[in-house]
């Protein structure tokens, strides 16, 4: 498999910059342009690239297969309808898609008033490096496995307390106060951990990506 055949936007780093100006990912931009013009083939490509990873993320938030399917469907329909909101100079298509799907999942989670501890969920999950679903394209699965390893490596470089706070916010959908209570740490400490953790993750992932 040649690298050029792999989804370029799977790299979890900010868009490249040139002279301080962000350089749009042309692959992303072209795909979105085609989707904006109503090209269903482009949408299918987009779905195949991102749906498996997004579904795993949504499930990690909701822990319910049926609800996860519904949320994934809602998210993709929204992305299809709202391609105009994507700005290739600000983010990768991957980041845009994750943010939309996560917001929908968190919204669903909060609407049913069910908060689940990430640690409990992880304990019940399959091996993160398990073989992907049969419907998943092999090249996309390979990219995600590589990215997962890179992100896990990056996470291992930031503090455990920081990673835990980010985990609870990202997957658990908890509020600042709930994270504080869950961790038994003062609110100010939780905020500081999240700030330091995200900044560190940005630095480490940027370094890895370059």
């Amino acid at each position, binding site marked *: 498999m040649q690298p050029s055949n792999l989804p370029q936007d799977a790299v979890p780093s900010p868009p490249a910059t040139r002279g301080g100006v962000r350089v749009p990912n042309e692959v992303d931009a072209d795909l979105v342009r085609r989707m904006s013009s109503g090209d269903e083939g482009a949408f299918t490509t987009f779905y195949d690239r991102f749906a498996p990873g997004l579904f795993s993320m949504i499930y990690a938030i909701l822990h319910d297969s049926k609800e996860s399917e519904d949320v994934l469907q809602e998210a993709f329909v929204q992305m299809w309808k709202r391609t105009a909101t994507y700005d290739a100079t600000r983010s990768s298509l991957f980041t845009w898609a994750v943010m939309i799907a996560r917001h929908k999942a*968190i919204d669903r989670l909060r609407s049913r008033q069910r908060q689940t501890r990430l640690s409990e969920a992880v304990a019940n999950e399959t091996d993160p490096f398990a073989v992907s679903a049969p419907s998943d394209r092999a090249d996309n699965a390979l990219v*995600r496995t590589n990215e997962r390893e890179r992100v896990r490596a990056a996470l291992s470089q930031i503090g455990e307390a920081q990673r835990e706070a980010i985990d609870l916010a990202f997957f658990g959908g908890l509020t600042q106060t709930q994270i504080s209570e869950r961790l038994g740490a003062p609110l100010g400490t939780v905020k*500081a951990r999240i700030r330091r953790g995200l900044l560190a993750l940005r630095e480490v992932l940027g370094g890895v990506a370059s």
Partner: protein
Amino acid sequence: MNEQLEEQASLYTLGLLAADEATAFAQRIEADPELRALVDDLDAAAAAMAHTAPARPLPPELRDRVLAQIRSEKTVAFPRRSNWLPWALAACLALSSAYLVAERSGFRKRIARLEQRDIFSQVQIASLSSKLENAPNANAVVVWDEKKQRGVLKVTQLPRNEENRDYQLWLVDPRYKDPVNGGVFHVSNDGTMSVPFKPASPVREAQAFAISLERKGGVTKAEGPIVLLGK
């Protein structure tokens, strides 16, 4: 960039700010390119967390369901029923007028970029149906332009509101804990009304629109019954 701003940016990225704080911060981002760049970077870092989710088999039939829905959404978004056509034409006319005004004002370069995009992709049209037992045929249409952050609401067959109450429009955006205020309005005797609106806070993802019946002058957070709802 000071630590306080970095902290706010981090909390904003993860959706941890209260609704009013998030609104204020979103406005600050738009006015501060450096802060916006930081938030974009933090968004990318946070999004990478998705890769750590344990792999979960994706139901293969889900793709067909999604494709079927986007095909039906196309029909819903631009139906050929005659009562929708004037609104679509009005949206075209408004954008064409904006083009002419902008051209005269010397914004040719900006417009040229806009021309490259499908103008219809920027306009969202929603149909709101009645939740009222005493007025089941009441309905409304919302034409929403996210780029311009403004829209038009047209209501028909909605009962006239009492003097001490107002109807109030709400925009549902998942970035906010509560629906965003779209303004209050009155309905005439014949149950019709048409009014432009601008939400009280920036709306990025208008997932649904609702109209509630509130006390006169409106409220900051919906309290009264929902009378019309749709997306």
